[in-house]
């Protein structure tokens, strides 16, 4: 069953065609990578899938509903209820502790629950660092807080933008292990990345070039997984 379908998606900024006739299906529980050089349309595609932008043409079907014509308010609601976002820059709120950063997502979603937020931090190995401010955490720890925040509301789709882009090898490995665990738990994950090693962890890799899907690689077939 498909969780996400992109049908003939185009995005045009003035004279620039950022995306052209993109067609893509992502099934429930799938781990998909999106790769491509700078300017290939990765960010535009992520923004459209993440309900932060609307396509100029085509339709986006998420969980059976066409969201391409939704108002800004409607997209905010979908983003809040169905999507968990993980960023390369972590984007933690500097004046809130790790625990409070996770609870912020609960606050906008429904009801803050300190115990549940603490459990989420525990799952990414940061239970002991819950009361620390982002400035007191390493890059890897901040990314794990970001992951705990993305997971706290049980979103149907995890969207990660270069999740290991700012991490050293050791932390990259920790974060990828968490992604593997999320996948094993049945989460649907879309990762935008420059790193072939990270892309390879997904089941499929979509390669974008000049705003178009250049090819789709089935990593499981290629690696014999």
């Amino acid at each position, binding site marked *: 069953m498909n969780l996400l379908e992109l049908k003939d998606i185009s995005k045009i900024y003035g004279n620039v065609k950022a995306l052209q006739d993109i067609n893509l299906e992502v099934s429930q529980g799938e781990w998909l990578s999106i790769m491509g050089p700078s300017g290939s349309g990765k*960010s535009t595609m992520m*923004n459209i899938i*993440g309900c*932060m*932008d609307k396509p100029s043409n085509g339709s986006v079907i998420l969980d059976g509903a066409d969201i391409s014509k939704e108002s800004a*308010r409607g997209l*905010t*609601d979908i*983003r*809040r*209820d169905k999507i968990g*976002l993980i*960023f390369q*820059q972590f*984007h933690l*709120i*500097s*004046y*809130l502790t790790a625990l*409070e950063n996770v*609870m*912020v*997502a*609960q*606050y*906008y*979603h429904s*009801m*803050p*629950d*300190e115990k549940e937020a603490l459990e989420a931090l525990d799952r990414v190995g940061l239970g002991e660092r819950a009361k620390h*401010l982002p400035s007191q955490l390493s890059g890897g720890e901040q990314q794990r807080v970001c992951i705990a*925040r993305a997971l706290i509301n049980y979103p149907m789709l995890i969207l990660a*933008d270069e999740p290991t882009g700012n991490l050293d090898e050791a932390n990259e490995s920790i974060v990828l292990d968490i992604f593997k665990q999320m996948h094993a738990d049945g989460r649907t994950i879309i990762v935008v990345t420059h790193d072939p090693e990270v892309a390879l962890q997904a089941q499929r890799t979509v390669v974008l070039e000049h705003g178009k899907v250049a090819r789709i690689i089935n990593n499981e077939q290629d690696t014999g997984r």
Partner: protein
Amino acid sequence: MKRQTMYLRMITSSLVRRRSRLLVALLAVAIGATILSGLVTIYYDVPRQLGQEFRSYGANLILVPAGDEPSIDRDTAQRAVDLIPKDEVVGIAPYRYETLKINEQPTVVAGTDLEGVQKASPYWFITGEWPTSSKSVLIGQEVADLIRLTPGSSLTLNGTGAEGQAVSANFTVSGIVQTGGTEEAFVFMALADLEAMMGDSGKLNVVECSISADQDDLDKIVKNISNNVEEVSPRLVKRVTESEGTVLTKLQALVYLVTVVVLLLTMICVATTMMAVVAERRKEIGLKKALGASNKSIVIEFLGEGLFFGALGGLLGSGLGFLFAQVVSMNVFTRAISFQPLLIPVTVVVSIAITGLACLLPVRSATDVDPAIVLRGE
């Protein structure tokens, strides 16, 4: 945890952990509230202060005989004086005038309550001393120059008594009075001394009253006396009362103007700071919107922060404002100012309102932040 608890936690964390930027806004609100509270305190206290200040310029109400009567009966005068609220009376000086001679020079002699004169006319400048015993007199500077008298000199007054009899008495000059007015041509003595010399008592020609009240209250007193004591004609000393009214109006207008300007400056300062805060926190706003925060949530959070330091600044300002008003009052009027407890809630509410207004535009711009642009780092 309740949503309100998390909301307060977010607001207070932002204020406490990002205090450097918000301290500027807090300072702006506190200074604005201080000036507001201080000036309003002065605004309401100025009439009292100025009233007391003007009382040093002498009587502002005189009681004279009604119609063609030459004098007022002392009991009648007392009935009129009794109609003036006791707490507003600064000093009452009854006068009886007689023309007597010093060295064959006709001179106006005034018998009065010398203690009452000191209160009603504190501007009199005395060389020597006020009379403290009977048979002592104050003489005006003109009389002293004419007869060549100094404090400690003796003088003999003679003339015609109430029954037409010749009267004569010796007095000691205790002091010489300078007022810059007609008083410098008079001799002043205790009313009892003059009555003893003239051989009758109970007659007054004028009663000078110094009253701490504004124009409206004085008008009411005049009306009350006119209606209840027909034998007395109360008259306001317009020179004093009108000057007081004019100065008061101008001072209050100035205070009002300065208050409005200060409030506007406070608003501009808070709005500018909040604009900077919003610009500085575009990424945070973008993130919150990406996490699903509605525009309403963003507005409530920023407004909450603004109103919080608005209230805090107002509270600080109401205390500092009293100190400010006290310093101004001590320096300008050399009198302590009275504390107005009502001013605390008023200052806090006004500060919150001003901060709220100042935050509207910056907060509105916060809702325009596009999460996609911000998260891309553009």
